[in-house]
């Protein structure tokens, strides 16, 4: 029975393998007149930088841009759209609510709801009881961040930084996941959001360094324990190094989240550009689903990476490295 099934599946695959290219050819033959017009369009657009692009291609780019970028319109095709209110300038800054701000608030609401439930369960639970359901699921993540991210990277005194690390992890995770829901937008795919989060990490790192070493120790850290004649090179490098860390965090998260969405949308638009159902079924949808699943993984991965690197930077800033050098120096004097 099983062998029969396998045989059938194999035969089916063979038929598909023969039919699909044929169908593609037939499709392109049928749609030949239109394709001739459509195919040069991307080329033209590529050459001219989208200035005089064909209407189809222009529309695809617009839709992708619209999806990725921030704006003050929530589009619920085909049901309509919600225009977010404009707030007048405050101190010369436009603080009107945009799509990504709304997403941030939705994420915050989701976080608060989920964790008030979980926190409530823990409050009512004795130490001997095992958590169940949602509390158990969240505990696995919390425990992971606590032990494998915070404790192993920061070491002594990691408890102080746990609330920040946990919040940043779940905040980014929920942002990433909500961005994968239809009609949603990825707030972490906006460079401003990731920049703000990395600035928080930057401040946390710097404050932790000051607390751990004091002002003198902090300044000594900037010299990287080298000879004074090298300070003119080392100090600027170390100072730049302090800023490259949050910059790397910013770009990594933003680029990862944006890239995944652009790839999914581009795959979908291949079928629109080529005007082929066959391409849609054989290429766009399977590949888009594959990338979507990959994005689900990336959502967790990038939240983890951001938290991990934050913990690593805090650990590096607070570590008493070069302690031996200081002692050796003291002995030398």
């Amino acid at each position, binding site marked *: 029975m099983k062998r029969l099934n396998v045989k059938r599946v194999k035969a089916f695959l063979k038929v598909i393998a023969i039919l699909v290219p044929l169908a593609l050819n037939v499709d392109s033959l049928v749609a030949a007149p239109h394709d001739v017009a459509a195919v040069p369009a*991307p080329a033209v*657009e590529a050459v001219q*930088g*989208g200035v005089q692009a064909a209407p189809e*291609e222009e529309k*695809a*780019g617009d839709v*992708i*841009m619209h999806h*990725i*970028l*921030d704006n003050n319109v929530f589009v619920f095709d085909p049901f309509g759209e919600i225009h977010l209110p404009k707030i007048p300038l405050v101190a010369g*800054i*436009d*603080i*009107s*609510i945009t799509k*990504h*701000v709304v997403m*941030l*608030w939705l994420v*915050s609401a989701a*976080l*608060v709801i989920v*964790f008030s439930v*979980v*926190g*409530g369960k*823990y*409050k009512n*639970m004795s*130490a001997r009881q095992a958590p169940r359901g949602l509390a158990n699921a969240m*505990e696995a993540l*919390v*425990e992971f961040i*606590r032990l494998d991210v915070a404790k192993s990277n920061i070491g002594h005194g990691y*408890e102080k930084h*746990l*609330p*920040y690390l*946990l*919040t*940043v992890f*779940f*905040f980014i995770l929920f942002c990433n996941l909500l961005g994968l829901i239809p009609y949603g937008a990825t*707030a972490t795919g*906006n*460079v*401003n*959001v990731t*920049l*703000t*989060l990395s*600035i*928080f990490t930057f401040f946390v790192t710097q404050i932790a360094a000051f607390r751990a070493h004091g002002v003198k120790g902090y300044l000594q850290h900037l010299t990287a324990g080298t000879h004074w004649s090298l300070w003119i090179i080392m100090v600027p490098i170390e100072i730049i190094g302090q800023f490259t860390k949050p910059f790397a965090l910013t770009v990594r998260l933003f680029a990862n989240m*944006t*890239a995944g969405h*652009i*790839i999914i949308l*581009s795959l979908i638009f291949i079928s629109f550009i080529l005007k082929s159902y066959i391409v849609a079924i054989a290429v766009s949808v399977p590949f888009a689903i594959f990338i979507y699943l990959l994005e689900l993984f990336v959502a967790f991965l990038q939240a983890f990476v951001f938290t991990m690197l934050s913990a690593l930077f805090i650990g590096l800033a607070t570590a008493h490295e070069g302690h031996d050098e200081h002692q050796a120096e003291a002995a030398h004097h």
Partner: protein
Amino acid sequence: MLTSGIILLAGSLLSPNPGLIFWTAVTFVIVLLILKKIAWGPILGALEEREKGIQSSIDRAHKAKDESEAILRKNKELLAKADAESDRIIREGRDYAEKLRADFTDKAQAEAKKMIASAKDEIEQEKRRALDVLRNEVADLAVKGAEKIIKTALDADMQKKIVDSMIQDLSTKRN
């Protein structure tokens, strides 16, 4: 893919938006504070408590194991000691019994000898007393018999002679 390149080149992806930065900062800080209050405190507290509980149970189990092993060792020692003690007691008891038996036998033999000796003495005494009694009896009988004979056949002198000789006889015999 071409479109994505164009989007990136267009630069709008990297354009700064102070309003969004402001809202992100405000939102994040508020979420951080709320979650710290409602979630991280209880959850981390519970986790730490559980961790401590697990550690203490492990410690307790180890301690209990060590204790039970110590008790087992002590028990074995005690058992060995008790065995040795019982062996010693049995041996001592046997020796004592042996000695006691020997003592008793000796004592009984001595006693028996003593008893035999005293019995012999007593028999001797009794015999002597019986002889005395017998002698008196015989004398009386003799006197009475003589009386009867003499009353019928002899006179007083004759009688006296006979009695004297008889007494003489008896006393010599006796001695």
